[in-house]
């Protein structure tokens, strides 16, 4: 390869080189981590060595049923996300399609959107206790309003001209919604779901940190109380990996379901 391309603005680089650099970024952080901890520059209490974190992870799985924690969080997210999607997607479509629906709902939804989901935690604990229902409610509040607004934008972005084309081909208003607006909005809606799912992970951890009996957030808080820094770090990395996997899953689904997108 031509080494000058590295220092040429926006010049393309070979794919293999790109992958190496991507992995190199991870390796560099890992190496730095290993160096500062091995040389004793940072006490293990604040930051354990990478291998100690790995060991903590093994113990989490082997002794503390970490899998159950992962499942507890995942289950809550899926449930809250499902309910938010089932209600938010139709509402968003409605707002993006009918001006009257938009006029009625948008100010309301736009207002609630600015209330942070985490601020509802004390209220929901009061109403619903600290079980799954409260967590699901937090996910719902955090996702539903954003979701509805983002789907509204997606539906509104469908070009007027393709709706008009459908009319000139003999489509009724109902057919225009069903056969044009809906399929045209699909990829944008799936992308919205992907983004919202990322936020849902943040909400669940906050909710579990405040009050919980299981879940990744609970595990992190519990580890802090017992001064098990390795467990905290391993849990955080786990959340990152789960988020990454969900994201890749959505992108895969996007390619499978909508091969026609640009």
């Amino acid at each position: 390869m031509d080494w000058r391309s590295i220092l040429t603005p926006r010049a393309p680089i070979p794919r293999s080189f790109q992958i190496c650099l991507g992995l190199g970024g991870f390796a560099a952080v890992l190496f730095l981590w290993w160096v500062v901890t091995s040389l004793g520059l940072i006490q293990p209490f604040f930051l354990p060595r990478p291998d100690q974190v790995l060991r903590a992870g093994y113990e989490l799985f082997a002794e503390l049923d970490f899998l159950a924690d992962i499942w507890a969080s995942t289950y809550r997210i899926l449930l809250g996300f499902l309910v938010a999607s089932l209600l938010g997607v139709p509402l968003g479509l409605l707002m993006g399609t009918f001006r009257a629906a938009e006029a009625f709902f948008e100010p309301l939804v736009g207002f609630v959107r600015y209330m942070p989901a985490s601020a509802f935690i004390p209220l929901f604990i009061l109403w619903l206790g600290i079980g799954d229902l409260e967590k699901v409610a937090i996910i719902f509040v955090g996702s539903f309003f954003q979701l509805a607004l983002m789907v509204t934008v997606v539906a509104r972005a469908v070009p007027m001209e393709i709706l008009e084309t459908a009319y000139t081909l003999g489509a009724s208003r109902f057919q225009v919604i069903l056969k044009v607006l809906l399929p045209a909005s699909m990829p944008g809606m799936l992308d919205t779901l992907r983004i919202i799912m990322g936020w849902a992970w943040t909400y669940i951890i906050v909710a579990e940190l405040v009050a919980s009996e299981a879940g990744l957030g609970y595990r992190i808080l519990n580890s802090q109380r017992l001064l098990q820094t390795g467990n905290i770090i391993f849990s955080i990395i786990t959340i990152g990996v789960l988020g990454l996997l969900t994201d890749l899953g959505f992108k895969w689904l996007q390619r499978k379901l909508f091969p026609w997108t640009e």
Partner: protein
Amino acid sequence: MNSVRLRVEGLSKSFRSHGAEVTALEGIQMEIRDQEFATILGPSGCGKSTLLRILAGLSRPSAGSATLDGRIIEGPGKDRGMVFQNYTLFPWLTVMENIQFGLRLSGREKSECEAVARGFVQKIGLSGFERAYPRSLSGGMKQRVAIARALANDPNILLLDEPFGALDTQTRSLMQELLLQIWEELHKTILFVTHDVEEAVFLSDRIFVMTARPGRIKAVLEVPLSRPRDYQVKGSPEFLRIKTEVSRLIREESIRALSSSMMEPRTQEG
């Protein structure tokens, strides 16, 4: 002489823009005959697209009326096919599915729709692209599919709003020939909007020249060139004579349109 298909009587359209009343169309009077290829030619901003949108039923006139086969146009319908300048294929449907869209809406048998669509794929020269999505088609191919999609519905009139406006000169020329070929084969009535003089002369039986805003019909010209026509006719003396005549008419209007648009920021009325 063929009977009248489309009749436009005293049609006007005005709308409010920035608080001022703008007259886009004024007293439009025209008759399009059965199986005729008619063109509306005008400078940009003269309201020719507005007129076509009213005929398609996508916009309402402020006064006057338009009738197709004696029925007043009150909304969009499949008796009028429409092709827009912008690419309006449904991106989630393949070429075949796009062409069948209108037929399937009317609940016709699937195999029947497919047969019709396959015939059109051949007519527009896209065999082999039946299952391609619009994203993989060139601009010219997309417009061919759009024309086939409108024609598959078997409309009484085909309305085309600068359909080749976004294409390069060579593609455009080929598309014009293809359109003429299809028109001659299917005996359709076509109303074509353009600002390109050569295009109008090459395609039309008659040209309706429009004035700059407010749009009125300035002149109606017969194009006596023989049919069928191919690109070579564009070099004939007869063609050039007509083109010069039409150019002169349209040039006056373009100058008017240009000078009025330059004055617009300072004047209150439209």
